[in-house]
């Protein structure tokens, strides 16, 4: 074989080996959030998420589906978030049809940290593309301020106790009252009446925090030839009155399902509206109570230990300042 044919051989082998990945590269996957990623905060307002799939020429893919899998941030090394059972779990798994190359949905991110969004695209002509996207959601600044103020309060409590327990007057004072903890009362939401199923059925698996539940909507088979519908599905956290998930007018062939991880042990309303051409919209609604699960001791112990350690540090500093003061004020004897 002459050296002239060597490059041609390399090209042939490359195309043979990497042919499938080359076809995947023909599709571009763009991801966008509104508001933009830097402004996202956990359990704030629902975020508009958008995927745009284009071909190599930059034009949106006309037809296809996108399989979406959203994973929650992994647990931290020492401190957990306020929802430790959600950490590292599957938040959402669904398949959305592409409309002018786009797939849009709303999602509320429950905790801070780095989320992973896995996207698998299949177009009508069989082209495939996969992409894993990571993005970080930062904690709300007010929560850090509240934590700082609470920690300072614990330290001051220990500081005062340390001064009181030190010296001659120690026995005269009883124990100082423990920290006054402020709490808001949880608003109790009115339970919604489940509407009768009618021409559509909404099925939701019994939901537990940390475990994805199957949410399924389907039209009752009434013998109609065309069962395609435009589905709008909304999941609302009733206590917070926040939309935690929504898709709007997605084209479905009479049935659609997803796995959804309800992030909080509370009541949720799942409402679906199916619009079928030539018929009145079909509304189905369910109110479900999500079973809460106690956080593991591994998540609770570190933070409580830190709080007690802060009080202990305050005690030490309080004692030190009390003992130091008389020493400084003592007159020098010549």
């Amino acid at each position: 074989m002459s050296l002239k044919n060597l490059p041609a051989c390399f090209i042939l082998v490359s195309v043979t080996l990497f042919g499938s990945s080359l076809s995947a590269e023909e599709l571009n996957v763009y991801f966008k959030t509104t508001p933009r990623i830097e402004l996202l905060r956990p359990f704030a307002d629902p975020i508009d998420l958008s995927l745009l799939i284009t071909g190599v020429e930059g034009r949106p893919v006309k037809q296809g589906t996108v399989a979406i899998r959203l994973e929650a941030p992994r647990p931290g090394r020492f401190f957990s978030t306020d929802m430790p059972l959600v950490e590292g779990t599957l938040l959402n798994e669904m398949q959305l049809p592409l409309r002018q190359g786009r797939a849009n949905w709303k999602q509320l991110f429950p905790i801070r940290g780095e989320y992973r969004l896995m996207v698998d695209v299949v177009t009508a002509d069989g082209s495939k593309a996969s992409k894993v996207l990571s993005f970080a959601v930062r904690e709300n600044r007010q929560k850090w301020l509240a934590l700082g103020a609470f920690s300072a309060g614990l330290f001051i409590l220990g500081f005062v106790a340390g001064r009181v327990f030190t010296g001659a007057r120690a026995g005269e004072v009883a124990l100082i009252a423990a920290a006054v903890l402020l709490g808001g009362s949880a608003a109790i939401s009115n339970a919604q009446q489940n509407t009768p199923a009618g021409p559509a059925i909404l099925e939701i698996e019994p939901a537990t925090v940390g475990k994805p539940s199957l949410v399924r909507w389907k039209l009752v088979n009434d013998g109609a030839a065309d069962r395609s519908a435009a589905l709008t599905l909304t999941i609302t956290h009733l206590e917070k009155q926040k939309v935690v998930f929504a898709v709007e007018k997605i084209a479905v062939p009479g049935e659609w399902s997803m796995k959804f991880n309800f992030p909080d042990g509370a009541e949720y309303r799942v409402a679906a509206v199916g619009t079928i051409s030539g018929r009145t919209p079909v509304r189905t609604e369910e109110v479900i109570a999500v079973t809460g699960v106690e956080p593991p001791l591994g998540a609770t112990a570190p933070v409580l230990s830190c709080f007690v350690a802060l009080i202990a540090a305050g005690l030490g500093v309080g004692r030190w300042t009390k003992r130091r003061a008389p020493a400084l004020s003592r007159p020098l004897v010549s």
Partner: protein
Amino acid sequence: MEKTVASRLGIAVSERISFLIKSGIFLSVCGATLFFALAASYPAVHDTLHNARHALAVVPCH
């Protein structure tokens, strides 16, 4: 209180030991209070302090 205990039991402890005992009791009471306020699952406590737990960013809740 300290003088009463010392006179009744006939035990006199140093100021340092007294501080350690009182601090130990104080920390135990504080730890128990924090546990009930931030980690207990009793519905009355949990429901009242639910928002406060979430507001502290690192306190786990369900």
